[in-house]
């Protein structure tokens, strides 16, 4: 199949009613421990912000009166809580689906997005998990296509086992595809 007509022109009708709709895919939601994970990671990353003025209160040579540091800490607590709530809701909006020929991921609370990556285009797959994710039995799946420097699609909040299974499955697909193409080129 080519853009240049002489070398490979075929123009079959697209059977519109037979083209599978991505909406019909059954989206898996994130692992159940993902919500707890987001809360804890939010706490770890933003907690020190709230704690800092309180610590400053305890340090004798910092001229910060008690009630002032309380007010500052309280003021900082509001965005921290908002971020936590947002990430809690966000976890519920995330989902992924594996179809025979592609992998689809959706995300976003207000600005929503759906990204579909054909399996035939995947060059490289990896799973990663940070220490906190490991504690919660979570992992993220990174998918790379040709030419890109960064991962083209990252699915977060997968269970370790299913992430590994997905990776194995996709690697198998890539292997099969490469075997096929090299066979074609050797003929």
């Amino acid at each position, binding site marked *: 199949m*080519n*853009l240049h007509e002489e070398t490979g022109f075929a*123009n079959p*009708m697209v059977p519109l009613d037979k083209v599978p709709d991505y909406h019909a895919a059954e989206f898996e939601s994130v692992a159940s421990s993902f919500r707890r994970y987001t809360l804890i990671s939010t706490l770890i990353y933003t907690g020190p912000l709230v704690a800092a003025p309180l610590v400053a209160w305890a340090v004798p040579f910092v001229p910060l009166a008690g009630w002032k540091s309380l007010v500052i800490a309280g003021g900082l607590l509001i965005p921290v809580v908002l971020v936590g709530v947002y990430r809690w809701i966000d976890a519920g909006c995330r989902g992924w689906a594996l179809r025979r020929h592609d992998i689809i991921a959706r995300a976003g609370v*207000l600005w929503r997005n759906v990204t579909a990556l054909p399996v035939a285009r995947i060059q490289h797959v990896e799973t990663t998990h940070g220490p906190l994710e490991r504690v919660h039995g979570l992992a993220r799946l990174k998918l790379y296509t*040709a030419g890109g*420097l960064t991962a*083209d699609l990252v699915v977060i909040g997968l269970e370790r086992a299913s992430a590994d299974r997905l990776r194995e499955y996709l690697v198998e697909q890539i292997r099969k595809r490469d075997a096929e193409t090299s066979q074609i*080129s050797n003929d």
Partner: protein
Amino acid sequence: MTEVGAFWKALPISAVGALYINGVQRFVRENLIVFFGAGTGFAVSDSLGWREFGLGAGLVLLTGLLVALIYHRRFRYRVDEDSLRVRKGLFEQQELKVRFERVQNVGFSQPIYLRPLGLVRVTLETPGAAQTEVSLPGIASEEARTLRDMISGAVGRQTGAADSQDAESGRHERQTGPPAAFSASAADLFKYGMTSNQIWILLAIFGAPASNWVESRVSSWVEQLSASGLLDMELLRGAPLLLALLVGLLIVSFALLLMALSGLLAIVRFHDYRLLRETDRFKSRFGLLDVREKSLKLTKLHAIEIVQTAVGRLLGQWHAIGHQAGAAQLDQAMNDDRRFLIPGIDGDRLEEVVRTLRGGVWDAPDWEGIHPRFRSMLWSRISLMLVASALIVWFMLPAHLVWPTLVILGLNLLILGIVHLHWRRWGYAIDGQRMRIRSGLIGQKIVEFDLARCQQAGIRISPYQRRHKLASLSIRLPHGEQSIPYLPQAVADQILNILLYRTESSAEDGL
């Protein structure tokens, strides 16, 4: 494989000069801004005279020569049956190996200083990052041709479409070659240079440092002028409109000067541009000081882009780009040499060129527009912001001056007009196999691509779009991302479905 034996070879000794010039050129290009700063510092400071300048320059040039010699000494390449290996590196040794069947393109380039030596620079392009590109900075042209024939033979075998004609065709195109499918005259190229956007990029880079210099120059000129009595400054001071006219005239003439300069540059760069069609590829040759030869395999061509800039619209000028797979997104801004560019196409010949490129008739499609809410959303938000700021300005200014407010409102109207033009330009057309996307403002850009070459596709929906059942579609192609904003959600979904269906039902690999 007669001339090219399987052993490590050094570059010919005459290539040292080429390496030297090449290295100095690159050094200057990469440190252009530093040079600019140094030049300004040099001009400003009194303690530095010409002697210091000469000394510094001499030192740099001498170091360059030393580096070139060492580089030449350590550079080794080896042509094997099916691959090319290169060993190089000043301090650490690097060894690269390129298998011929991975090679997408063999680029030849012959700068003017290589011509008397009978050397050419050969670049092997592979799909993937630009850093992995392998080049031989100067080998004998006979050897280069043999190498190319070997590579195209290997690639031909691999795709099962070897043709003996191709091996011959590279030899003497200029004298006996096939007639060009497209050739650009100097006038065409001049127009292309005037219309291309590169001058504005240059202006953006050098505008800031240059403006200081221009400012000091202009003020001294003005002083001289007023001292000489040619121009009555008092008169100008009394007539602001005349002054504004003068300044405007200056700016316009400066822009025209830049455009002419850019036109001349284009003539030098693309001199005698010829597009040739061979059995399985396109080939282009061009250049005055640096003769280049590029090729584009038909099977690798996945998208065609035709562009008319705003100035190009005035002159009826287009240019076209044939995109092939590769991670060229990163170096597209300044001088992306990996693009297959066809410059200086005038309106009458556009259809012919595009027909040659895509191998079929370029029928003007019925463009489907995007949703009017794209326009009304931008209109309402921009107007809201600008009217509010106009009111604030009016309120805040002492004596409630009216004209700044009016200026802001006038600007607002102008922007609304621009938004309308931009909205109207957006368009797409989709047949069973290909998709075309048109965008632009005054000029336009049309990209046509094979649906099956899509790398990834996605849909983005903002809260506003969700309320109105709209969505933006983005399509990742091997050369970069294309997007269409504000489609009805059902349409965006359908296009996404078709894209995926096409990509997944075609067996071919995406590379």
